[in-house]
C-alpha cells in the first residue's frame, strides 16, 4: 500500500515537472526573444498579445500543425529517434534536481524534487552526455551534407567540454564531500559559504562548458547560419524540429543554470525574508539571474572558429580544472 502511494506520488510529481518544464521552456523562448530584441535596440515580439505574451502559443500551434516532412533518403529509424534522444535526456536531468527543502502542507510532507539520490550529480552528467547521441543521430540520419557537418562539429565541441565540465565539478564535490545535490547545498551556509568564493576557477570553466553544451554563441558552430543552413536539424520540420531548440537552448540551459546555482551559489540558502516561500524565491531568483547571464553572453559575443573551440577545451580548460583540483585537494588536506 505504501509502495503504491509512493509510486502515485512520484508519477504525479513527474507529470507536474514535465508539463511545467514544457510551459516554462515555451515562455523562455519569449524571454530570449524579448532580451535579444532589447540588446539589439528593437522591441522584440510586441503585437501578438500584450507585449508578445501570446507569441509562444502562436509558435507552438503553428509548429505542431505544420506538415511533417520525412525526406525519402533519410535513415527513418534514426531520424525519428534523434529528436527524442536530444529531448528526453535533457528533461530527465530534472529528476535529480532539488528545488528546495521538503515542506509540510496539510499534514503531508511535500518534497520539491522527484528523487534525492546520493549520486545525483553523476546522474545529471550522464543524462547530459546521452543527449550527444541525439545530435550525432540527427546529423547522420539526415543523409545530407550540412546536417552531417553540424552534427560532427557539435559532437567535437561536446566531447571536449564534457571532460572539462566533469573535472570542474570535482572541486565543489571535494569541498562538500558528497555527490548528493541536497547535501552540497547544505554544505554552503551563509553568504560567504557559497562555493563561488572558494571555486572561482571551477565556476569559470563551468560557465564556458554550459555555453558550449547548450550551443550558445561563442560556441554555436553547430548551427552557424552563414556556413551551415540550420545545422544538424536542417532536414527536420514541424515539431520534430521544434524539440531540438527546445531541448538544447531552453531546457538544457535552464537545467544547467539550476546546477550552477546548486553547486556555486548556495542553492536555496538565503535570508528568510519571504517567510515560508523564501527558499523557492531565492532559488528561482538565482536561477533566473544565471540564465539571463547566459543569454547576455549569447546575444553580445561573436563566434569562435571550430579549431579554436576545441583548442580552448583541451589546452586551456582541462589544465585549469586540473590546477583547480590540485589546489582544492591541498587545501582540503591542510584544513582537515
Amino acid at each position: 500500500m505504501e509502495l503504491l502511494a509512493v509510486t502515485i506520488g512520484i508519477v504525479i510529481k513527474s507529470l507536474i515537472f514535465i508539463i511545467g518544464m514544457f510551459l516554462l521552456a515555451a515562455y523562455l523562448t519569449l524571454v530570449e526573444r524579448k532580451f535579444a530584441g532589447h540588446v539589439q535596440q528593437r522591441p522584440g515580439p510586441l503585437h501578438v498579445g500584450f507585449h508578445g505574451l501570446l507569441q509562444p502559443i502562436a509558435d507552438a500551434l503553428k509548429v505542431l500543425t505544420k506538415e511533417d516532412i520525412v525526406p525519402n533518403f533519410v535513415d527513418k529509424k534514426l531520424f525519428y529517434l534523434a529528436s527524442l534522444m536530444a529531448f528526453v535526456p535533457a528533461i530527465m536531468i530534472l529528476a535529480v534536481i532539488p528545488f528546495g527543502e521538503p515542506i509540510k502542507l496539510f499534514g503531508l510532507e511535500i518534497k520539491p524534487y522527484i528523487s534525492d539520490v546520493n549520486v545525483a550529480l553523476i546522474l545529471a552528467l550522464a543524462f547530459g552526455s546521452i543527449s550527444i547521441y541525439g545530435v550525432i543521430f540527427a546529423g547522420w540520419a539526415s543523409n545530407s551534407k550540412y546536417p552531417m557537418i553540424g552534427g560532427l562539429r557539435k559532437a567535437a565541441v561536446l566531447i571536449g567540454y564534457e571532460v572539462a565540465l566533469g573535472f570542474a565539478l570535482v572541486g565543489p564535490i571535494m569541498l562538500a564531500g558528497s555527490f548528493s545535490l541536497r547535501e552540497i547545498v547544505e554544505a554552503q551556509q551563509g553568504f560567504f559559504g557559497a562555493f563561488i568564493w572558494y571555486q572561482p576557477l571551477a565556476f569559470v570553466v563551468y560557465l564556458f562548458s554550459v555555453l558550449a553544451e547548450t550551443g550558445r554563441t561563442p560556441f554555436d558552430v553547430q548551427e552557424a547560419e552563414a556556413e551551415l543552413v540550420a545545422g544538424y536539424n536542417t532536414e527536420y520540420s514541424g515539431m520534430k524540429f521544434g524539440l531540438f531548440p527546445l531541448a538544447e537552448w531552453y531546457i538544457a540551459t535552464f537545467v544547467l543554470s539550476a546546477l550552477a546555482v546548486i553547486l556555486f551559489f548556495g542553492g536555496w540558502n538565503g535570508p528568510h525574508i519571504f517567510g515560508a516561500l523564501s527558499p523557492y524565491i531565492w532559488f528561482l531568483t538565482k536561477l533566473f539571474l544565471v540564465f539571463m547571464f547566459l543569454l547576455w553572453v549569447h546575444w553580445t559575443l561573436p563566434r569562435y572558429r571550430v579549431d579554436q573551440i576545441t583548442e580552448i577545451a583541451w589546452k586551456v580548460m582541462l589544465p585549469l580544472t586540473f590546477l583547480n583540483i590540485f589546489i582544492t585537494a591541498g587545501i582540503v588536506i591542510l584544513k582537515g
Partner: protein
Amino acid sequence: MAIIGGNNGIILTTVEEVLSWGRRNSLWPVSIGLACCAIEMMHTAASRFDTDRMGIIFRGSPRQSDVLIVAGTVVNKVAPMLKLIYDQMPDPKWVISMGGCSSGGGPFPTYSTLQGVDRIIPVDVYVPGCPPTPQALLWGILQLQKKIKAKQEGRELKEIPVRTPTASFPIKG
C-alpha cells in the same frame, strides 16, 4: 470568435480559427535573397523595422519556414533552385513576391530573366517597388496575414493598394 453574454469570460471559437491565428502570427520566412531587394528585406528584419514584433523570424532551412519572400531578380539560372526551395517547404506555405523584378521581370525584359516568379510558383502577395521600402514589405506581410484570416473565414481578399507605403508615406493605422 464569439463572446457570450457580455463579459462573463466565455469565449467560443473553432479549431480552424485558432490555428489560422497561430499561423498568421508566426510566419517564418526562408532567409534567401536574390538581388538588391534582399538588402531591404534584411533591413526590414533589423533593428529599425524589426519583423520580430509580429513574430516573424528568419529561418535558415526551408524545412522550417512558412513564407518564401522572393526578394530580387529571378534569372533563369536561379529559377530551378527557387522552385526546389519552394518544394522543400512544408505545407501550409505562402509566397510574397517582392519588387518589380520578381513580380513581372521589372527593368529586365531579356532572354536571361524570368518574367515574373508566378510562372513557376504560386504567389500570394505582390509588393510593388524597385526595391520596395521596408515599410512596403511590412505592408505586404500585413496583407498576407489579412489574406490568411480571410481564407479561414471563407472570403477572398483581393486588395489593390492606392499607394504603396514608402518612407515619406508610411502605413496608417
